[in-house]
Every structure is written in C-alpha cells, then in structure tokens.
C-alpha cells in the first residue's frame, strides 16, 4: 500500500509532539501513544528524546495507517 504518511522529517510531526498541533484522536491507542510521547518530550525536550518520540509515533502511525486515515488528513492538512 502506498503510504500517505509524511516523512519523519516533516516539521508537522514535531508540531504534533510539541502540542503546537493539537488533535483529538478517536482511536484509543493513538491518543494514548501520542500523549505518552508528548509527555515524554515535555519532561525532557532534547533532540535525543525527540528522535525516540518520533520513532515511536511514526511506527504507530505506520502500523495503523489505514485506521488513522482521517486523523492523518487532519493533522497534515
């Protein structure tokens, strides 16, 4: 399947993880996963932490891309 996910270096990922883009997920696991990484980054806002967070969130979005289609469209509009 062709991905609709922007690459990991798209700045909107950082905006999502730094809460500059706020999004309400309807998929429980997505809300918990993104929220976990936002909180981790709030605790320690370093490049290393960001890389860990983006890896985790990106992998999650990849796995559930089809179910998150509307969320992806909204976040990356």
């Amino acid at each position, binding site marked *: 399947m062709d991905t609709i996910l922007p690459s990991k270096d798209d700045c909107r990922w950082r905006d999502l993880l730094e809460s500059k883009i*706020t*999004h*309400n*997920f*309807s*998929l*429980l*696991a*997505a*809300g*918990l*996963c*993104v*929220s*976990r990484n*936002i*909180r981790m980054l*709030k*605790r320690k806002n370093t490049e290393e932490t960001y890389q860990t967070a983006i890896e985790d969130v990106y*992998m*999650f979005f990849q*796995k559930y891309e*089809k*179910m998150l289609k509307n969320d992806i469209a909204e976040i990356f509009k």
Partner: protein
Amino acid sequence: MVSISKLASAEEAAKLIETGNAYLISGDERVLAKLPKGNWIGGTTCYFSIGGKAVEDRDNVFITGFPEFVKMKCIKTYSENFIPSVAKDACENGFSILLMPAGSEPSLQYAQFSPMYSDLFFRPIIGWITGMYLPDWNPASPHKEKRPKVFNGQTGECEINVAEAMHFSLPANKVAVVKTISPFKVKENSPVITFEGNNSLIVKEAYLNGKQVNLPKYIIENNIDYRTPMQANYSGIPINVSFPSEIQGDEMLLRQAVFSDVEYRFTEMAEQPDTYSINNLIDKEKYICGCTCIFNHLTFNKNGYIPCGVDGPLTFGEIAYQIMGNASTYLELEEA
C-alpha cells in the same frame, strides 16, 4: 471456535471447555474451581452486566468464546517482575486479554508503570481487575479465600498474586480495536489538578491551578462529589482515575495511578441519554468481550441500567492498554 458471550452454568461451561476451544470466563471462585482443565483463563466476580442491567449470580459464569478465525497463541502467567513484557509476548497482529486480581502485585506494577511499557500501544490489550462477592472480600486478609483471584485453566492454578493473559493472533484481514466509554464529563468550573512525584496511587498533596493543597481535605471541605472520577485528556481520549469509596484524613489511596505530567479535572455525570443505552452504540457483529466498572453500577445505576454497561463482568478496574476507572472497555474485531 464459536463466538459466545453469555451467562452459562458450570456444566455448560465445562462442556464448552472440553471442546478444546479457548474461553474467557468470569465467575464466583467456587464455580470456576469446578471447571475442568482446558484453554481458558478466569477471573473472580459474581457481578455482571447483561443487556445494560446488573446481575448478581454466584452459580453461573460469564463465558466468552471467540470466532473461528481467532487463534489462541498461548496462556501465560505473569508475576510482578514479568508483567512489563506482556505486550512483547502479544502477537504482531492479534490481541491479548489480561486479568489481574485487585490489590495484587502485578496489578499495582501495571497501574503505575504500564503507560511506559514498550510496545504497549502497538498490541491491543484488554482486560480487567478481578474482584469477588463484596461481603466476603477483605483486601487486607492474609487468607486466600478473602481475596480476588485469577485462574489458569491449563494448569488449574488459582492465584491471588499473579496476572493471567491469553494471547491471540488474527488473520491479516482482521484487526482488533480496543475501545472505552466513560459516562463522565469534565466539570466546566473544575480546577486543573496536577501532582508531583510520578506514578502515585497514594495521594496527599496536589496542585489546583498551580496552588498546592491537601487534596483529600480540599475535596471534603469543598463538598466535591468524589463518587465521580478525575479525568485526564490523552489527545482526545478521556481517561478516568477513581477516588476511593471514602475519603478521610489527609491521605487517600486512588484506584488508579496519577502521573506527574498529566492534567486532571473533576467530573460530573454526562447527561446525554446515550450513556444509559450503550448497547445501541455497540456493533454486536464486531463485539467480542468487555467489562464495566462495578462502581458505576453501585453508584449511578438508573432505572436498573448501569451507565455505559456492556455485556460482561462488572469489574474493579478496566484495562484498555492501561488501567482506567469508572469506565467500560470492550474489544471489537474489524476488517483490516
């Protein structure tokens, strides 16, 4: 395997177990103890939600069987030290059902640390904290018969201090989706509640809009209705943390952990009628299993109906990846 979700006698449950298929069973300890060995896990309770109404039944069990395309990978017992690996043990495409006795070491470890477990949100996990017949329950008792339990049907073991999980795989065209519903909404005038120190179940001090207070005293002095939980917003997902049944003094033991980097708010019962007719919102074709917080029944039962009651046991903590309170959680299987 056949998809089943119903109350059944011990004899009927035994017959089903003897088919060799996998089952998830909730019931009174005396009934679970009678069941033959087989591919099942069980958790103690004698309270159930059937069609949105509460049922107390110490003679029958609530048994869930799974559709034919669902394949059981294994049943695994977890002590406190091994519970963090529960998601790693799960199938890449599948789901896991996790049962933990109330007050057990794995349940306390899971309550405090599961949000940090690696892989947790990548492998759907649903389950509940098991309880028992309330008049017989003594959480402080050293006697096993006074404590909630889990059963491993394969070994026949019945324990108060381990968790039992069943791991299932799904075909590529199916996906498991864990859902939760809360009948509570944030109070409009609620202060923002934050905590210092991480992963706390025992709470004294909190910050309300940044001002330090003793939270138990604040709740009593300000007549806060603590039958309703605190609620946090996890990127759009409401997650409840329940207060104890009674608050006295300057310290309280919460039913779920609070985290230092999460903002909580007081709640009130949502008024929309849908919260009392949740069965209409659930797709019966997709529904596999679920549970409903017993406190929502004990405190807010209205006209016989439990707020957001889903078919299954009434439980003492609901697991939808992490532990939440005052909620209903359930598992659906959808087309991938």
